[in-house]
């Protein structure tokens, strides 16, 4: 089960990163703004928070343990 969730998380990270560079971080796009914040900045902030959130989930659902201390 843990392994399945981990694979989903890895897939989510791939989709978020590739999707962001393809569809969000495009040139000369300022709108829609969030308040007064330009598009690239607020979507970039959102993507960074999402990736860190996925890192947290990845740390919880990582399927392997280490057998002994280094």
């Amino acid at each position: 089960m843990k392994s399945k969730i981990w694979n989903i998380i890895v897939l989510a990270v791939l989709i978020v990163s590739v999707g962001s560079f393809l569809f969000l971080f495009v040139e000369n796009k300022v709108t829609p703004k969030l308040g007064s914040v330009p598009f690239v900045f607020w979507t970039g902030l959102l993507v960074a928070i999402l990736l860190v959130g996925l890192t947290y989930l990845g740390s919880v659902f990582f399927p392997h343990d280490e057998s002994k201390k280094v």
Partner: protein
Amino acid sequence: MTGWLIFFFTLFLASLGFASYKSYSKNRSSDDFMLGGSNIGSVLGFLTFSAALFSAFTFMGMPDFFRTHGVGAWIFLAVSDALMVFMLIWFGYALRKKASQVGYKGVAGFVQSCFQNKWAGYLVFISSFLFLIPYVAIQVRGISIFLSAAFPDLIPDWGWSAVLVVLMLIYSEIGGLKAIMYSDAIQGVIMLAVIWIIGLTCLSMAGGLEAGLAKVEESNAALLSLPGPKGLFSSPFLIASAIAIVLIPVSQPQFTTRLVVLKSLKSVHKMAYAVGIFAILVILPTAFIGLYGAVKYPDVPTAEFLSAALLFDQASPVAALAVVGLFAACLSTTNAQIFALGTELRSLLSGSDKGNMRITQLAILVFSLIVLGFSTIMSDELVMLARVSFAGTSMIAPVVLAAVIFKNPPKSLLILSGLALTYFVLSLLGLVPAGFAGLQTDAAMYCILIPVSAVIMIAHHFTQKNTHEA
């Protein structure tokens, strides 16, 4: 301000002295000295990783990057760092697993053991030496530019650089990696606090977020979108930067070693998302400082903008804290890198424990002197120089990854990475064309290095499988 400066510096130096004293042990082995006894918890681990990662390059370079190139600076660093911390979850596990099988004294020695080839170790050491020395020199250069602008008649540029290097040498030679980690923790906390105080002050001086952004839209609207007014943040640049930054824990030994010396995999995983949170928190206020710069100092030189925004426009206690915070940020990255070079050298030595430790301590002194010399001839483009360092060391990432993944890693990767590293260095020296197919050198190299490495690794995986089955 002088009174406040003396007060904060005394506090800072006292805490560094305490860290060295707590870490000093008379009968320590070279492993205790160089690897901190390999028993570091997640809180100390995350603070030392973050402090080593964020430095003068973040404190000074990022505000200037936001001011000059606009909001794309966020994607360049924060999004790339968020991807990098995710990579730590798997890489930390795989690295520690392999290190527990073959032993670990440093990345160069580790790779040498995995490949059963001394050239593999030399390749890692050469890459570290070539690209960490300029990276350390950037930090030293950064602090000397700032302090010279702030106190023009006190001591010359090189004097500030020398103070930093001597201070770092004293406490790292006394306390070893553990002293560096404790001081990193202190420096990380100072840096985060100071950058937020300055960031919020700058935001308020810019008239608040809405008014500040409105002024920027009037004066230079290109700052609010990609690729920025100078066209720097093109997609190839941002993607190549993300790759170079994601590979930092693989190819920059000061970070690789920090993953191994943590006491458990759980600590590594906690550290990973904590570093991600720290990255967002520390980069966000640099955008506020950059916004203030774009509003008030759009056309002045870097040093003038930084000394005004971080120092002269701030209240005395904040300005004094900024000096100490910047000094701390710079010191933590510098010592991590110089010490990592020492660790790498030691991992290639085969003599007695005491002899190796003496050679390593001497090497750290020599590396510091080289850095000091180098820092006097560096340019002022801190972020771009840091990026070259990340990209340069990433050329040997396939070698380290293969060492971690495979029982008998394919030696053809040594030739591939060696060629990539050589081409990258030659392109920096202007001896071969810098980039091709309309791409910059690093982006173009990744277009070759990543697919070829992947093909070699996949082919090796199936060959090994067939050999075992036969």
